[in-house]
């Protein structure tokens, strides 16, 4: 499992933040984090290129998109001065050379393994892109969460079309692991939305939900009717009926703001939650109880579990 850590302690440029960057541990009960790659870079996102046997890793960071082609032994910033504050990264599951990144200045894409980058924001109403997601189910289908709604591209980010979710401040989008028509979105101030028709229509899910700002929504890869969500002082919500209703599962949590969630694809009971400040929490019983896992004092933006 990989954790992208934006910052520790002081959130100020020039402060010593040596433990930021990419951390990892083996999800088989390991409790020790190891740091890989450059530190001090404000790591917002991380990913492993599917099919690379964890050789090709990415860190989306303030300094740009970092790439390792040797399992984290060496790294290179692949973007130049004109791409900055990379907030998310999503490699194309079908193409080892194609990667998408989301930034406050739009979506960028490489088709040559990060040698060159091209801005691909045509059709986006707002450039601020919180998250970009290449669909694992549909070829060349890409989603992005932006400041003025959720967008879909069916041509590999050449063009974008706004989906039916018209609220501002879409923070995250997740796709059902088996049914590409089912999408979930977390928003700023507008709660959790779900779509069952590929994003044309969306429904706000309010049953059991007492909060409005959600940064993370995820499906259990093995039991997709089980979902988790978290956001600004929300604690962690769980749904067992495909998002129809939600219940807070906060036992053991010392913090309530969460930015990222991940379910172990090998063990549905093992769930991880990345806190905005407070490191990673792990549950071994499907969210019934949470245990802090570190790294301490860290702002965890993205968790990624390699299957």
């Amino acid at each position, binding site marked *: 499992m990989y954790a992208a850590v934006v910052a520790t302690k002081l959130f100020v*440029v020039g402060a010593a933040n040596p433990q930021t960057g990419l951390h990892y541990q083996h999800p088989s009960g390991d409790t020790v984090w190891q740091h890989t790659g450059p530190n*001090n870079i404000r790591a917002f996102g991380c990913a492993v290129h599917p099919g690379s046997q964890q050789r090709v890793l990415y860190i989306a960071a303030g300094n740009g998109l970092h790439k390792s082609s040797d399992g984290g032994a060496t790294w290179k910033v692949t973007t130049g*001065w004109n791409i900055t504050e990379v907030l998310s990264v999503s490699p194309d599951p079908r193409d080892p050379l194609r990667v998408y990144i989301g930034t406050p200045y739009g979506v960028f894409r490489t088709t040559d393994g990060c040698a060159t980058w091209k801005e691909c924001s045509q059709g986006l109403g707002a450039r601020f892109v919180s998250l970009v997601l290449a669909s694992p189910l549909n070829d060349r289908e890409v989603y992005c969460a932006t400041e003025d709604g959720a967008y879909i591209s069916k041509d590999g980010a050449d063009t974008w079309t706004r989906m039916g979710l018209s609220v501002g401040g879409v923070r995250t989008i997740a796709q059902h692991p088996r049914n590409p028509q089912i999408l979930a979105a977390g928003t700023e101030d507008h709660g959790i939305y779900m779509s069952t028709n590929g994003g044309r229509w969306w429904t706000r899910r309010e049953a059991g939900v007492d909060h409005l700002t959600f940064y993370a929504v995820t499906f259990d890869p093995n039991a997709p009717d089980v979902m988790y969500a978290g956001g600004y002082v929300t604690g962690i919500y769980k749904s067992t009926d495909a998002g129809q209703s939600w219940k807070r599962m906060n036992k053991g949590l010392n913090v309530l703001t969460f930015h990222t969630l991940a379910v172990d694809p090998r063990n549905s009971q093992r769930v991880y939650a990345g806190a905005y400040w407070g490191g990673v929490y792990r549950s071994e019983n499907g969210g019934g109880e949470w245990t802090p896992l570190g790294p301490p004092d860290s702002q965890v933006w993205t968790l990624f579990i390699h299957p």
Partner: protein
Amino acid sequence: MTVRSLIIAVLLFGGLAATRAQSHADYLKHYSERARHIRSAFDTSTAASYYAIAARYASNNNIPLADSLFRVALREPRGDMFWMFPVIGAYLHGKDKMSPETRAVVRNAWKTYAPYRGDTENHWAMYYTTLYLAAEQWPGLPGSEWFNGKSSQENLEEAREYLIHWIRITTTIGQGEFDSPDYFPEYAISMCLLSEFAQDPLMRKRGQMMMDYFLADFGVEHLNGQYLGGFSRIYQPAVFTPLLSGASGFAYLYFGTGTEAETSAGPLPETPKARPPGESPWSGWVLLPSLSNYRPPEIVYNIATDRTTPYLHKERKRVRNVIRFGTEKNPPVYKQTYVTPEYGIGSLQGGLLQPIQQHTWSVRFTSGRPYTTIFGLHPYWSSYELGMFFPEELKPLIADVVASKGTYNNPDKWTGGSPYERTFQNRNTLLVLYDIEPGTMTEHIDGFFPGNLNERLIDSSGWIFCKAGSTYIGWYPLQEGEWLEERETPGQAKNVIGRPENLSQKQPVRNWRFRSHKLQNGYVIEVRSEREIGSFQKFVSVLRTRIPKAILTPGKVSVDYTSLSKDRMKFAFPDSRILNGKAVDLSATKLFEGPFLNAEVGSEKLTMTYKGAKRVYDFRTVTVTE
């Protein structure tokens, strides 16, 4: 040299330089003396400080010790671009003198320590300037030898490309982090290093030209070491004690001012005291420029110091990159400053132009150190403001910012812009209006008045009349308010938590705060000097009869005022400005316009003029003609 003796020397030389007209030869001689004094505060230090190390190398003072200190300092690199520039500065001053072992330690640091590139314009100026210089120093290395995995050539090209892009933006639509008394050093140091150490003659030339550009930009709005007018960014201490800013150390070095003793001001208050070179991290930054071969052209010095004739200077800058809640990435900023021998009054148009540390308007004067300013603001904060400029999540952002800038959400803070504030300036008359939405943080406006003014009369006419030496300031509040004793805490001075509930009542009252709780609000400011209007009594009597007419209802806030100069100013919030019956079009403001600096928007040129001299900078051709 001890810090105490250095202070005395600085005061002496500063005072001499500022009060005496001098030839360019004299200027250069005095410059060298000042630079030597700065250097002397560092080159005998045994601290493992990059500044001390650089000074030792430059002075050839115990090179083995400098080597040793350098290696110690590099054991734990930290500070991102604030690490990069002193390290490359120290290296460039000492590379031909240091031991091979020390050279190897320096080289290795650029391989193993990954600095964050930062998120502001000054960060990038430092990052890419120093990366450029480092890449030149170690050419031909593969990516495995650099912290970012890029080869020497890739780093060189990227840094060069960014610097040229940044110069182009700056000279076409203006800086985004403009006129910052506290961030001026970051640009000056970067360009100074580039102008001296770049191996590429064109880049070296660009460094020289940009250094001249920044010094002229500062110099034209400079008065006795103070930056004048409105600013993109300023820290709280320097907002009410102007000589505490980093720029003042550079005014001392380049203009011979900055720490001038004001004989008319009487004894200085016990605290805070001005920071001379060598006493603080800010002034430490002036060390590298003081070691440099760069010298400003005579015309820049003259523009910065000749205050024999009052003048109006206008300029256009740009808003920092807007990434949320806006359709335009870099909307324009309009600034104007009226400069006289005794005072300067300047303003930005208002609104949110920079996060956290904006200073929308001020009057600054030569008398009354250290509190040589009067200004006002709406102390506003919001996740909306931060979200406009920072990519992190909106709701936790305030807490994240407060962790390092503790005054941000302090209702008593003295810095920051507001979407509910607008200005209308006509030379030395300023109108400021507020139309604050109910429920906003906060529901009051504040005005800062120094406690050591010669006069602060609260007149029955409604005017507040102030006298600071030979500068007179009239402030007409459009709504009633209250006077609060302003206690200054060490916490506030250092930008850590200085919240009202933490204020010690044992702290002496140094200043005054005029607070008004009305949401539809404003004031009229008139400033004149003795030489402009005569006695203070005359200023009072003439102004007493000029009462602004205001409409102060929500959504309809306006003021109609005829100034001391008999100009009719009609101002309606937010942006209707009418002067003598004619609408004022701020969008017509050029990049620079005034008696000394002129540039068209988009031109990539700057023309400096002073008396019969003219100097034209063309950044497209990288040439300077006279």
